[in-house]
């Protein structure tokens, strides 16, 4: 089962993802893609670590090349987030076709895991014209989100902690809220 969660900044994407994964009884693997390059990144990483504390996640830090990660059969996977992965593939690794590469990597995770959740972000909605490399990033993120949504069983937009279903049905853990 593949779930894509999109939404704006600090709108509750991770907590929705963790709620869905709380139903997984086997191993849970967290793939962290954010490179801790500055103080703010350290703080964001720390905040997310605290959120996951006691929830039984094993953390793998992988900033590029997620196709090299092979997860155990039946496990739950949370990858956070596709936007960092894209930035790393484009600007650190200089990858020429990052959309296909990331899509393949995620399909590979989904072969073994029982539940894969990808957190992404909508970055094309502010109407600002940026320098060419940022516009390329926006285009790639748009294409990646479309490709991932197509192969996903569920697509959820997180709106201030509320899961709004864009594809598929509301996960069980939210049905009584």
């Amino acid at each position, binding site marked *: 089962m593949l779930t894509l969660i999109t*939404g*704006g*900044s*600090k*709108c*509750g994407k991770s907590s929705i993802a963790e709620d869905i994964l709380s139903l997984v009884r086997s191993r849970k693997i967290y793939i962290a893609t954010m490179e801790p390059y500055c103080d*703010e990144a350290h703080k964001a990483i720390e905040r997310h670590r605290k959120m996951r504390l006691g929830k039984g996640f094993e953390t793998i830090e992988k900033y590029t090349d997620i196709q090299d990660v092979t997860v155990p059969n039946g496990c739950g996977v949370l990858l956070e987030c596709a936007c960092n992965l894209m930035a790393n593939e484009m600007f650190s690794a200089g990858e020429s076709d990052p959309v296909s590469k990331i899509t393949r990597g995620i399909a590979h995770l989904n072969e073994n895991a029982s539940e894969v959740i990808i957190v992404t*972000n*909508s*970055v*094309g*909605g*502010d*109407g*600002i014209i*940026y320098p060419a490399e*940022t516009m390329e*990033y*926006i285009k790639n993120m748009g294409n990646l989100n479309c490709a991932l949504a197509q192969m996903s069983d569920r697509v959820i937009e997180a*709106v*201030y*902690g*509320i899961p*709004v279903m864009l594809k598929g049905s509301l996960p069980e853990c939210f049905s009584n809220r």
Partner: protein
Amino acid sequence: MMLIIGGSYEGKTEYAEAVGISDICDGETAGFDEIKKHKCVKNYQMLVKRQLEAGLDPLNEVEKLFDECPDIVIISTEIGCGIVPIEKSERIWRETVGKVCCFIAAKSQKVIRISCGIASVIKGNG
């Protein structure tokens, strides 16, 4: 609490007025304590910005608002999408609005999202 959200100029305030919500003050200009005297506050995202500029913690402030005015209606513009701003204060503002609105949404019986003047109830009953 009740929360009405959506992009700029999508019809949030007009919706509130159409469903009979009156006594709306403006978070961009109202005094910090004055807000508590009204039934509804619009531009809550601007109130958050002013609280940050005044050195207040907007999460603390919204918790106090909930304690004192549990029935208040909050209208806020969604500002969290797009490229992460280079300017640090802009980043902090947009992230804080996200966290504050997560709190408001959790405390609200009803959350309504307006797009092109059309309301969708995303939490609570129609």
